[in-house]
């Protein structure tokens, strides 16, 4: 089903302003010449940028030019066992210029080619932080020139490739969007009067109480960003984004050599909202205690049967499974089939595209993405925004209604079901904008209390005559729990094609014995085959909503895939998922695989408890 919508040009002023307290009714006056420099260089590029190609009658001109600029003010403080590892405060500005050749129907975008234009400076890069006029014009000038030449070359390669195909896609390359102006006042970062270095020392010191923890990190990451967008269509945007994070990863080896990791993460809309030292210490103490319990727990065995995901685990599970499914944009045309395979392997192709009206979730379940929502059950939501990163006003979307697929999230890259953006083209740190959730609500009209859901779970267990069944209390996020890039690469390799077919990483898993209700923790379990199809029929849905604030990965190759939920503050896009406990009637769980490591020859050196 295709649809079109008419937009009137509209101007929103200071509609959403979560970072600052200042709200003004009129366009602000300040010393920021960024937009003026963008406007003037854009005017020149629109009218005078052209390239005559020998043998063609008309010179090439860009039909669309886009300037994006990101002003990042970041503080990062890292502590380990009570000592400060590093502390930094950086401010940088990055630009990204895009030029498109052709027209909305067929242009130079959405094409992955084996080789392309390599300019000497490039259309992206770091630019001056003075908010001045002259240096930015100089930088935009070269970047525009490079982006335009890149587009000319890609366009010709794409045309050549398309001419070799039997049938070309009838989906447009670029959706039209009404121009939008939104100029928010500049915000002065409020780092609050808290001593972040001292907090990192004090919170990380909690883990000294666990001599068996080999390594740990507690990272405070505070971000204030100003984003600028100016397009040749007339869109002009300056918005503020901010968030604050505390992320901690820690590891140990079990006595049999299995490496065990654990993590803690909490996010807030701004630094002052981060939890206090006491609250973080308490949470880290729980995490440390759980890691020690995992270390002592027996390895998981292979298992098939009912699995209960408690709400704290169900929300991150849904973030992983649903991220690719709700993305309605077409994938890029690829010169090499490898890219296609790669995307499929990572679970990045939506199973829901082309299935509007079909039942994809249990009857009574709705899935709503609401970028305007600010809080849920008393918890502030991270994913809110007014205008997406392509300058399109954010819309609340009913993705699934009563179990049936209704409308997917769209950026300005059209897809089979829609050729217009609904304001979900999101990107972290100037990556390509991709349809991404903001605040995603999983709601059901038929719910059970946690006690009733557990009873149903244990009944199912008994009727299958299983000695025990598994309950998942927390999911892993390896981009936080793993402290070394090597470990992360090893993990990715272990997925093989599994990410696409539904390998999931639970972290805290218990056996529950239906006879007497006793619980035993197990370690190293991996769920396989849990894909979007498994969500069509659920054994039960709780009424205990959990608000999961997290970072969507925008790492190239991860975004829009099942690994998209493995993000961290440094490379992620703030998002929220609100969901209750979920009961699956029949899942396959595998026990630990792989060769264990040898234990260190020496015991850990002494470290006093605080």
């Amino acid at each position, binding site marked *: 089903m295709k649809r079109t919508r008419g937009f009137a040009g509209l101007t929103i002023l200071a509609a959403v302003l979560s970072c600052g307290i200042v709200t003004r009714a009129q366009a602000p006056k300040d010393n920021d010449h960024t937009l*003026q420099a963008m406007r*003037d*260089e854009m*005017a*020149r*590029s629109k*009218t*005078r*940028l*052209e390239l005559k190609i020998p043998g063609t009658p008309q010179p090439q001109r860009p039909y669309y030019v886009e300037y994006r600029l990101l002003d990042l003010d970041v503080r*990062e403080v890292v502590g*380990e*066992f*009570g*000592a*400060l*590892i*590093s*502390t*930094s*405060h*950086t*401010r*940088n500005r990055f630009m990204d210029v895009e030029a498109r050749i052709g027209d909305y129907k067929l242009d130079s975008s959405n094409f992955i080619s084996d080789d392309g234009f*390599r*300019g*000497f*400076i490039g259309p992206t890069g*770091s*630019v*001056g*932080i*003075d908010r*001045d*006029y*002259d*240096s*930015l*014009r*100089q*930088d935009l*000038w*070269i970047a525009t*020139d490079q982006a*335009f*030449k890149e587009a000319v070359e890609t366009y010709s390669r794409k045309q050549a490739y398309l001419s070799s195909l039997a049938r070309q896609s009838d989906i447009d390359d670029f959706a039209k969007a009404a121009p939008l102006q939104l100029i928010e006042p500049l915000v002065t970062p409020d780092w609050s009067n808290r*001593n972040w*270095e001292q907090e990192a020392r004090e919170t990380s010191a909690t883990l*000294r109480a666990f001599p068996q923890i*080999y*390594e740990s990190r507690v990272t405070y990451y505070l971000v204030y960003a100003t984003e600028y967008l100016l397009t040749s269509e007339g869109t002009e945007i300056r918005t503020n984004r901010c968030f604050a994070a505390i992320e901690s990863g820690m590891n140990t080896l079990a006595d049999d050599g299995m490496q065990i990791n654990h993590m803690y993460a909490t996010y807030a809309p701004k630094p002052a909202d981060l939890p206090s030292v006491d609250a973080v210490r308490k949470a880290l103490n729980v995490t440390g205690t759980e890691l020690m319990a995992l270390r002592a727990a027996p390895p998981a065995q292979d298992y098939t049967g009912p699995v209960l995901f408690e709400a704290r685990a169900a929300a991150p599970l849904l973030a992983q499974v649903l991220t690719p499914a709700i993305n309605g944009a077409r994938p890029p045309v690829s010169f090499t089939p490898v890219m296609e395979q790669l995307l499929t392997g990572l679970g990045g192709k939506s199973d829901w595209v082309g299935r509007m009206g079909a039942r994809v979730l249990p009857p009574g379940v709705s899935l709503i993405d609401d970028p305007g929502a600010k809080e849920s059950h008393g918890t502030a939501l991270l994913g809110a925004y007014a205008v997406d990163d392509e300058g399109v006003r954010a819309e609340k979307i009913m993705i699934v209604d009563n179990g049936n697929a209704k409308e997917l999230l769209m950026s300005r890259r059209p897809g089979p079901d829609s050729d217009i953006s609904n304001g979900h083209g999101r990107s972290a740190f100037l990556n390509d904008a991709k349809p991404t959730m903001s605040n995603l609500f999983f709601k059901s009209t038929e719910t059970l209390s946690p006690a009733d859901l557990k009873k149903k779970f244990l009944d199912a267990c008994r009727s299958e005559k299983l000695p025990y069944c598994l309950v998942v209390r927390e999911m892993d996020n390896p981009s936080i729990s793993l402290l070394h890039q090597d470990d992360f690469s090893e993990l990715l390799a272990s997925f093989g094609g599994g990410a696409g077919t539904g390998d999931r990483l639970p972290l805290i898993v218990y056996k529950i014995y239906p006879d007497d209700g006793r619980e035993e923790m197990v370690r190293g379990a991996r769920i396989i085959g849990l894909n979007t199809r498994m969500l069509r029929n659920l054994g039960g849905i709780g009424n205990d909503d959990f608000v999961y604030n997290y970072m969507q990965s925008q790492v190239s190759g991860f975004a829009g895939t099942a690994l998209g939920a493995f993000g961290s503050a440094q490379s992620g896009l703030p998002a929220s998922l609100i969901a209750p406990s979920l009961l699956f009637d029949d899942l396959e769980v595998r026990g630990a695989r792989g060769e264990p490591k*040898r234990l*260190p*020859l*020496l015991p*850990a*050196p*002494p*470290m*006093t408890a605080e």
Partner: protein
Amino acid sequence: MKISVRHFMNFILCFFGLLALLLPFAAIVTQAAPPPDTQVKKSPLLAALQAELERSMKTFKAQDPPAYYIGYTITDTQRADVSGSNGALLNSAEARNRWLEVSVRTGSYETDDTHKVGERTQTSASPGASVPLDDDAGVLRRAVWLETDMQYRAAAEALIKIKTGKEVKVDSVENRAPDFSHEQPHSFIGPQVSFTLDRNPWEEKVRAYTRTFRESAAIINSIVTFTAQAQNVFQVTSEGTQLQFGQIRYRLELFIQGKAPDGMDIDRYYNFDWVNPADAPDDKAVAAAQATMRKELEGLVVAPINEPSVGPALLTGRAAAVFFHEVFGHRAEGHRQKDAAEGQTFAKKVGEPILPSFLSIVDDTTMQKLGSEDLLGYYQFDDEGVPAQRVTLVDHGILKNFEMSRSPLVGFPTSNGHGRRQLGATPVSRQGNLIVESSKTLTNAQLRAKLIELIKAQGKPFGLLIDDIAGGFTFTGRGQPQAFQVLPLVVYKVFPDGRPDELVRGVDIVGTPLAALTKIVATGDTPEVFNGYCGAESGSVPVSAASPAILTSELEVQKKESSTDRPPILPPPAHDPAKTGGQQ
């Protein structure tokens, strides 16, 4: 620039300068641990390292295979970076970090886990780890414990492989030298260093310097970077070495880019290095460098392309210094005489003439200055804890010695303090301060007269005057031609008939080292210093090269590879006659 060295190809890429521009964004320390004080006081880090060293050595020397050497190094780096581009501040930050490196060797000095069998290259199990800025012995020892275990495991595995491999491979004569040299342990506790810097004046300077560059329509991009770095090293080894020493360096780099009408990229680069804050270049000195850079870039953009030619050439001191660094210095690095995969250009030439008898070359890392210029290759101890030394490499044309790390050669059993590395890499023998000395000197005017004499005698239409060299590529591997290629940036044609010199572009010097070095016929009388960062197997290290101008009877040049990217379509905004959009 860190380059990866693949096992099938030994390739040195040496680009002076530019490095600071490529480093990731640094950070502003808002509130760190107090900076190390400047009194000579033993850091508590040494005691923590020593305690863990003793505990580790006791256990690991009793294993099979045994560890026979363990070394711990912590490098505490305080660094400030202030960069500007095209008239605006790009970033300004100060950061501090402490990096731990652990070296564990298994086997014996004779044969250990670093032994080369065939073409397999040795890689470290880990580049190291961040350790706390706070002097917390417990947390530090935990990091040391894990790194030591990991390094021991890798070294044990490597040694087992080597022992198996040795049975099926025949060792070359060169490879019969031991794997690790015996050295005297050293104890030295020097003062710790740090700087207190107000970045504001530098922020204004980098803005102003890059704003000046914008006045030229030919300069399409400019970057100026100021860097201050204080490094304190703490090292203990199982041989009994215990070191604490520090060093501060300041640097200002200027970089501009342009494009010739045919698409060739034109870069100009200049750097100032100093140690004493009072020696910082003033605005006048920087303005002079900027004027030269601008003039050269504007000249090069419109200069004709030089066709390949062979003929006499005069290299100014700075160009000659880089030429010697590339063509001679890299080949005199000891480990290149040992590795079976290396060309071993000079391995069997010790005691033989390789240069004209009026030339001598030393590598003296004990020199802090040459004349009034600070030398970047100065240090107290190399990265294997061996004191810096003056090494005579060539004495009156005769090859005498090599730059040696602790990897011995037959006939050269010990290090002469040239084992160097970038943080995280394994040290190999590298250059420090390469200084060319001449006993046959001419004045500048005499050298030029001699050049014209040579042009006439050879019946050539012109000779070349080479004024600046960016660095180059040197192939030292056995599988490649024993050739070098250096990249001159500013080259003039000199005509015998008295016409003015003509600036040309697109020149690469090519040749084979042994031949090139013997063609030198005379030198100037004033040594000039080139300070830079040199990248090779063990990463980027600070080096100096100094040489008087040299006149060579024959130099081969070829055409430089060029980019096909056209110059920008529109003129620079500040130089656009059609003012679209209001300038402010």
